[in-house]
């Protein structure tokens, strides 16, 4: 009973921080739109070309702009010791990581959804592709949150300022990109690809709390 209350409290605090950091979210969305504009300027505004490559561009830019906010995933809580206090109140590191992934999903990735239909308008995408993009983004962004948690917890240990975490996120997101863009190419395999994506999500939801918690423990030990 106390645990549920504490989890509720944790989300309340995350919501509070989300309100206070809302400028971060808007700057991420701005980055996303500006990079779309740059792509269009670089390729030329040919309608047929933009329609054929729009989906891939939107997905890869979503990926890049979601790696922007990864640096803050654990760093603040780790530096001021909130992780220790939360752990001392009876929440294990694994549960903490899991809650943090969920809050990143709800407060960073889901608000990104509002920008997707607008981006699709810029590329003149047909409406069914927009629906598919929304569905795959909801599933795929959960995978990105898990990957981001792993890379951010690795960065806690990494004293040299090297962006290896972001590189690893990009490397492991290759299958996500392949499957989620592939949904639009062949209509009949829609169900199977969605199932594959959900399967990958479940694997990462299982693996990432364990590995991130191990990294956080080692980082606390190293500090």
């Amino acid at each position, binding site marked *: 009973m106390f645990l549920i209350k504490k989890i509720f409290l944790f989300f309340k605090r995350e919501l509070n921080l989300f309100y206070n950091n809302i400028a971060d979210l808007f700057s991420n969305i701005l980055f996303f739109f500006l990079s779309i504009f740059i792509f269009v300027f670089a390729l030329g505004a040919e309608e047929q070309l933009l329609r054929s490559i729009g989906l891939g561009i939107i997905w890869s830019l979503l990926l890049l702009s979601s790696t922007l906010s990864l640096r803050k995933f654990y760093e603040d809580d780790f530096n001021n010791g909130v992780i220790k206090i939360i752990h001392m109140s009876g929440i294990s590191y694994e549960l903490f990581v899991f809650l943090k992934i969920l809050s990143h999903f709800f407060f960073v990735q889901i608000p990104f959804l509002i920008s997707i239909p607008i981006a699709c308008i810029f590329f003149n995408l047909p409406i069914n592709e927009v629906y598919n993009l929304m569905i795959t983004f909801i599933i795929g962004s959960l995978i990105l949150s898990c990957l981001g948690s792993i890379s951010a917890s*690795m960065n806690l*240990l*990494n*004293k*040299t300022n*090297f962006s*290896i975490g972001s*590189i*690893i996120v990009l*490397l*492991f997101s*290759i299958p996500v990109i392949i499957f989620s863009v592939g949904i639009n190419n062949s209509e009949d395999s829609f169900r199977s690809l969605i199932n594959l994506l959900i399967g990958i999500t479940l694997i990462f939801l299982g693996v990432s709390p364990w*590995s991130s918690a191990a*990294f956080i423990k*080692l980082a606390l030990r*190293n500090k």
Partner: protein
Amino acid sequence: MFNFLINPNQFNKFVDIIFKPLVIIALITLSAGLMLVYLSPLDYQQGLTVKIMYIHVPSAWLALITYAIMTIYSIVGLAFKISFSFIINKAIAPIGAVFTILCLLSGSMWGKPMWGTWWVWDARLTSVAILLIIYLLIIFLNQTFENREVREKTIAIFILIGSVNLPIIKFSVDWWNTLHQPASVSKLSSPSIDISMLQPLLTMTLAFSMIGLIIAILRIKAEILLRKKYL
């Protein structure tokens, strides 16, 4: 008997015995292989460019074998806490990277006259390029973390995750319809390559693996000396 594979002291003793013969064998096989390559027949379609194969194929095989060795050692190191396996992981990752680069470079040199392009986004080529990225990431990861144990375990786990790529590389020519030709040597019943081409190919493979082994031995010995304090 095979203790030298997991024990640094035994490894040093064993290597001191076999190192000089190994160098001699490597020199002999390399010169014999080059000789055989020189004498080998030209392809009736590809002409002289077929001789790129004698560098391309051995380096591709060795890139995969190096990664497989690293995977096995990661499993052993994580499961039985043998720190020697992490030494090997650190020592042979650059060798694998060099073989992969050699494979990609010779492949694109071969591809330009044959396919008319340096690079295609074909399943085999892309997966090998990802293998190169994984090798480079392993080399970079070796320089990031300050804590040695954390670094070694992280790299071992990363190698295990990256080993998903190995079967993808191996079977990519069978699973997808690709420009790259399917396997011709490793068909179990009857290799679809002529014996006059198979002989130099196998000799070159032996020479390449000998050279790789010599460099690996030198690097492992240097790494053992560096870590003498912990072992």
